[in-house]
Every structure is written in C-alpha cells, then in structure tokens.
C-alpha cells in the first residue's frame, strides 16, 4: 500500500490566486457523503461555473495535468481532506506553490501528494511557462528539490521530515504509528488525566 514518491512528472496546470480556501476547492455540499468517491467533478466547481469554461480546470490544454501550480496560502480554511481528495481524483499528484495552509499540507502528505514551495517569483515564472507551453513536461524532483520545465530549473522546498516520508515511501504513517503500541501505552500511563475520569 505504501510507495515511494520521489518524482512527480507530467503536464501542469497553473491556478493564479492567493488564499484559495478549501470551500472553493470543494464546496461543503459535496461533503454530504460517506465516501470520497465522485469528488473529482466537484473540484473548484463554483469557480468553474462562475468563469463559464475559462477556469484552468475546464480549459482543454490542461486536461490530464498532474501538477497544480498555485500561489499564496493555498488550501486555507477547513480541514476537509475532501479538498485534496477532489484534486487527486481530478488527476493532481503534486503541487507547487508560494505557501500552503498547514492542515491541507498534512492531508496531502497523508495521501502521498507532495506540496512544495518556491519563491513568489519562481512560482510566477513557472505559471507563465506552463501557460505559454501547456503541453510541456514539468518534473518535480524530491531528491534534488528542484522543479524543471524545459531548460528552466528552480529550487523548491519541503520540510525535511515530510520529504523523507515521501522518498522513503513512509508517507502513510498509520502502520508506523500502530507498530509503537507499547510506547503509546507507556506515554498514556504517565499522563495524569487518563486516570481521573472515565470519559467514554
């Protein structure tokens, strides 16, 4: 179930805008379900309808893109994992941006989708390059921490702990966490409040 994520390569889609929140990525009405199925069609649905076909997710040149290039504070707001799930079901496997909201970033790690950051000017340049040549391949390399489009190469960043989880294939932390049950019980036993009152 766990697999290494060292390189994400493919076509990219630029989405210009700051503070794009998770309500915009997937509106709350799409959360009325007990599975993550069928979220792909809802990605940015209200923005897409407002832009009548002009949203990058609707433009023909970006269909099949794997890398989403965004600006500042992408994924702010709600903790809904439905947001990255919707992006993943649309086809996104990696994100490059100026900055990401923390819960969104954590959700992406847990799903094996790296979110790397670059300087504002680098991100702007990447968005321009992709807009000019939407069919060009973008290579996001977590080993070298570089992104490459044609002959343009730029450095990107991701927290070292998260990077290690991707390249070693341990981004799905569940197995590792469960394996430490004895230590977990030990930590719990030392917390005074565990014994004060039965809560559940």
């Amino acid at each position: 179930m766990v697999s290494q994520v060292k390189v994400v390569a493919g076509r990219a889609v630029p989405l210009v805008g700051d503070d794009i929140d998770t309500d915009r990525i997937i509106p709350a009405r799409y959360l009325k379900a007990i599975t993550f199925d069928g979220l792909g069609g809802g990605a940015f649905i209200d923005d897409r309808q407002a832009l009548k076909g002009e949203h990058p997710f609707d433009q023909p040149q970006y269909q099949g893109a794997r890398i989403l290039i965004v600006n500042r504070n992408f994924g702010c707001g709600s903790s809904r994992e439905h947001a990255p799930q919707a992006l993943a079901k649309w086809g996104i496997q990696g994100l490059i941006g100026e900055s990401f909201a923390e819960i969104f970033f954590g959700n992406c790690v847990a799903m094996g989708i790296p979110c790397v950051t670059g300087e504002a000017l680098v991100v702007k340049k990447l968005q321009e390059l992709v807009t000019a040549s939407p069919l060009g391949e973008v290579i996001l390399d977590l080993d070298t921490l570089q992104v490459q489009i044609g002959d343009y190469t730029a450095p990107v960043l991701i927290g070292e702990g998260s990077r290690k989880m991707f390249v070693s294939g341990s981004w799905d932390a569940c197995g590792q966490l469960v394996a430490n049950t004895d230590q977990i019980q030990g930590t719990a036993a030392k917390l005074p409040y565990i014994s004060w009152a039965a809560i559940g």
Partner: protein
Amino acid sequence: MSKGTLFDKVWDLHTVGTLPSGLTQLFIGLHLIHEVTSPQAFAMLRERGLKVLFPERTIATVDHIVPTDNQARPFGDRLAEEMIEALEKNCQENDITFYNIGSGSQGIVHVIAPELGLTQPGMTIACGDSHTSSHGAFGAIAFGIGTSQVRDVLASQTLALSKLKVRKIKVNGVLKPGVYAKDVILHIIRTLGVKGGVGYAYEYAGTTFEQMNMEERMTVCNMAIEGGARCGYINPDQVTYDYLKNKDFAPKGADWDQALAWWESIRSDANAEYDDIVVFDAAKIPPTVTWGITPGQGIGINQKIPSPEELLEEDRLIAEEAYRYMDLYPGQPIEGTKIDVCFIGSCTNGRLSDLREAAKIAQGRRVAEGVKAFVVAGSERVKKAAEAEGLDKIFQEAGFEWREPGCSMCLAMNPDKLQGRQISASSSNRNFKGRQGSSTGRTLLMSPAMVATAAIKGEVADVRELL
C-alpha cells in the same frame, strides 16, 4: 525555538517518540469525531483490519448536517440521514460514546466537549475539523486534522507531526463598550493576515484575555486557524478552574486537587522563550466587520472599504477578487450595507453568553422588514439554558426564529442556506466565497451583538447605538 511555554510542556509530555522521518509521534488525549470527516476513516480502518486502540478517548456527536427546524428521523435529506446512520453504526461497532440528537448533550462538537468538561488544560485534542483550535481556551493543545489522520488517531491514538513555533499575542487593557471577543480576534487576523500564523501555535496572553470568561476565550481560540495558526491557546487560570469545577467529566475529589496542581505546572513559565511576540492595545480595537472573502479582510465599523493602495502589495490580488465578488468597492463605508439574512450561532459564537449579548440588543425591538433572522444555539444544553432565562422569547418577540442546535448556516450543510446573491450578517467564522450555501452568496462576519444590530436596522450598523 520556544522554551518553557505551555505548548512546549504539553508537547513533551505527549511525545511517544521520534519517527524515522524525524517527525514526532504525539499522543492525543481527547479525540472528537462527527459525521462529516469520520466515515471514510472508519472505512480505512476496516480495510486494513485495524481496531480503535483507545475507544474510551474518542467522543462523537452529530452537528454539521443536522436540520435546525424539523429533526424527526429519518431526515428529509437522504444523504444527511445516511451520514448520521453511518456515525451511529461506527460508534456502536467500535464502542464509542455518541451524543446523539435528543440525548440532552448533542451540539456542535466544539461547544459540547467544553460544556461536558471533556476539554481540560494540558490535553492534546484532535478532531477532523479545523475549529478544534477552540479548545485551546482551556490551555489544551488542540488542532484540526484530516480524515486520514482521524484514521491514525482511531488506530493508534497518536499522530505524526512536526513541532510548531510559538508566537505570543499579547493584548492588554479593557475593551471598550460594544467591543467583544469576536472583535479582538477579527482585529488580530486583520493585522497579522490570514497566513501570518502558518507554522505557529498562538499563545494569547495579557490582561484582556485574563479578563475574559471561558466562552469569550473560546471565541478567540476558535478563529486561530483563520489567521493560519493551527492551534491557539490561553494559559489556564482561576477562570478556567471555576468553569471546569463540577462539570460532568471534570476530575472530582482528590483527583481535582491533583489536577489543579498539574494544570498550574503546565502554564507557560514567567521566563518562557517565544519564537515571536506581538502586542496589541485593547482600547484601540473597534467593533469589527469583514467586507471581503477572507476573515482577514476586516475593518472597523466606522471605516471605509480600503483601496488597493492602502493595502500591502501582497494583499491586493485577493482584494480585487473580493471587490468583484462582494460588489463592494473601495471608499464605500461598510456601515449602511443592506442585509438580507442574519445568523447568530456556530462554534465561534453559539454559546450562552453570545446569545445573551445578542438578546440584549434584540429585547424590545423588531427585526427590520424583509430581513430573515435566526438564532441557532450551539448545543442542546445551551438551548435549554437560554430558554430557562427566556432568551428564546426575547428573540421570537423581536422576530428572530429560534432553532434547534447544530452548525447550521456557518457552512450550510443542512437546509439553512443563503439564496442567490443574498448578503448575510453572520456570527460565524468564515466569509469564503460560497461558504453559506449559495455559490454567489455573501457573508459579513461580526460579533453576535452586531448581527442582532444588523437584524434590527436591516443594514450593517454600529452596535454602540443600541447599547
């Protein structure tokens, strides 16, 4: 790097170990779940053949999808019914306590855990909801998580996390009349920006917070996430202990004495070191209203909507987007903006003291013609307490609807929604595009008293005129 803060102490006490990635495996003392972000997590557990490791440390309620008018089962909305049934089944199969509708203790997850005394100082608290930061009001380290992480907590009662930096936000002084906890947090977010807190835990300190009651402190911590900080907290003090004493799940007898000593010990040290410190003066905080599409786009009630030139360059792009979406323009006063819908409630401002402040404004007055105004108590207990004081009568006589508890029109996953381009005055926490159920609906965030004022006047107005 911070040292000696409550955050550092609680983090260390809950550290199980360091994972190969370098991330910390952190024990979660209290896990709260609801119907929206948990069903997929239980499905993942089943797929992997895992069991809930500490079922007694997970507590469930239903809040996001519940109708606030007719709560008879099955719900009219088939999908909502499917979600509550899934939660009932998952709780039953995994031996998890569930505060269901009609239990007397159901409500918004961030309202019920504190009122039951589940939320306590020194705990780590996680929930698949970004407003989990609310619980930091008690001196807990509380934060929102996604569904895969809900799975991790169910399976291991732990999470893989990297430690946050700590920023102290100090507000000193007395708030002016008509200025509430909501205004304080809107002012902080407006000043530090919606991404200013990314990478930080916020410690709210200073005399202004010390003077606040627990419900006001929860309003402040609730919106830490709107400023980008995944968690915000206030050191526990006598106000905290007085609130907790005799609550259902608060420690009792000898445990209480032990608890008091432990809670005092985890407070930030007087010489604690912080990664950053920001200072505000309470007297300078005005009643605050948002005009745009992020909680950081706020202004004082008597101010005008800022022009791009008045904003930092990095805030101009989103401001341009906000002018267009809101149909509000630079230089326009926010006061006098016509309102269609008034919503009082949510995990930010749906507690008893919030309803009391709004009722003071509503008492003996009438909701303006053409305005739909409704009040949604945060929990069954809040509703009952408010009715015992006659607040329901005050609201109803003024023309407000009095509803059953739930998240309601904060995010409109139930039938309470804006229609078309309606504009709402809302005591909730988010003014994102489409947030309140219409893809073109517009939201102005403000304190409950200001929402009540808007309902009476039919437009955004200064609460101080009705005090």
